[in-house]
């Protein structure tokens, strides 16, 4: 999609992830990439957290990740009905963050490979999550 045609879909969190048409490399986690050191910094960063360069540009990240650990919560939160799974993940760029998981919790374990995915919710919003990457090598 062209970056000149922004999405009209409403996201559950506009700061954390981007849709197909928002920034290069989307969909994925909202990030910037440094033109000096080529490293990513998570979020709406004004500066590269690796080298402090101000020459950064938006670029999605986190399409692939590895599960560090996860828990199944028996209490609803953030629009998720209980029980739901949430994981501490580490993306291929090295970002560690908490992210919702979709799929059978029994399929998750330490070092499970994950892929970024978008979810259309019943209320019409779009959320992000990570699912087991069955096609991973």
């Amino acid at each position, binding site marked *: 999609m062209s970056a000149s045609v922004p999405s009209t879909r409403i996201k*559950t*969190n506009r*700061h*954390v992830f981007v849709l197909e048409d928002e920034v290069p490399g989307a969909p994925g986690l909202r990030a910037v990439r440094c033109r000096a050191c080529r*490293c990513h*910094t998570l*979020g709406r960063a004004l500066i590269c*957290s*690796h080298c402090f360069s101000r020459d950064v540009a938006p670029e999605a990240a986190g399409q692939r990740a590895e599960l*560090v*650990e*996860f*828990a*199944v*919560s*028996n*209490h609803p*939160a*953030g*629009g*998720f009905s209980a029980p*739901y799974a*949430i*994981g*501490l993940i580490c993306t291929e760029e*090295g970002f*560690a*963050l*908490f*992210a*919702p998981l979709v799929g059978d919790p029994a399929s998750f374990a*330490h070092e499970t490979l994950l892929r970024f995915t978008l979810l259309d919710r019943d209320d019409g919003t779009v*959320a992000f999550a990570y699912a087991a990457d069955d096609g991973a090598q």
Partner: protein
Amino acid sequence: MADAFISGCGFHPFGRFPNKTLKEIAAEAALAALDDAGLDPDAIDAAFCANAYAGLLNGQESMRGETWLRSIGVGVIPIINVENACAGGGTALHLATIAVRAGVYRCVLVVGAEKMYSGDTAAAIAALATSSDTEVTAGVGMQFAAVDAIRVKEVMREEGIDDEALVWIAAKNHSNGALNPNAQFRKGLDAEAIRNSRVIAAPIRLYMCSAISDGAAAVIVSSDPGRRGVRIRASALASSPVRARQGKDSTAVRAARKAYGEAALRPQDMDFAEVHDAVAPLELYYYRALGFCEPGGVGRFVSERQSARSGTMPVNPSGGLTARGHPVGATGVAQICELVLQISGGAGLRQLPHARRGIALNAGGWIGEDPAINAVHILEAK
């Protein structure tokens, strides 16, 4: 740099007090600390007041400390309000310590207070959830019970620990809390009750968790040892590292390293500890972070019951957050009160036989990969 001492400490008991206001709870603890130090309110040069959620839960967003202290006749002096999530109490003590050591003030009141119980549990949980980068965590499903469950599972996997270790730690803290007249839970829940309580986020069960709580604690920090005569040997604060550039060490490890460095002491020089067990099994994490055992040694540390009151390194003799309670702004100050009581021989039925020097770790919030803030204090007999 001058020494700073704790010359007095006081409490409002932790629990649920539907007929009391935050002001009453805070003022009662402040007055108790002044009485313990043998001081009139006019003896105070400044006050640092810690609270996290009065804006959300009590409708008092600003100038909280001024409202608390007015009712005990304190005015004119600088009153500084401190907010740093669950580590507000430890942060307030850090600021007071700096001020006294620098000679700016001679006698400072530190009060931590919170009133979380309103009958609306969802409101309290929603308030707690704001102790994170809400721009990042909103709509993601992050809640502290799940975050703590993930952290505990990480340690269990790395250290080869089973669920029974978690049950034992929770039972230990409930047993300790039963001896603490200021604790929220004094029934001394046993292992079976804990094991059979409902799952919140596996492996965390209900009776492993700190509860919604009202309460306050206060200390007097002064350049004079005063009645209690407990020296603040180290006062350290660390915020969550930007790991991409600042390395892998956690907030807790960084704050502990600062404190040990400042005190020129080692973990084995400590006699006991108070740590931030928002859920009891988080103690597993702190045993390692504070250096009480080496990586790989946590399972043995637990199986040998070293953190029991009769062990080599008693942890949370007060009952910890799990049993004493966790009125957020008060928690860090309550930990210091426990250190002061133990070191000065005033801990009553839970008095430890060897308590010359203790360490407290107060954690707050979450940002990035770590708690947003950790305050670590080392106190010792003068």
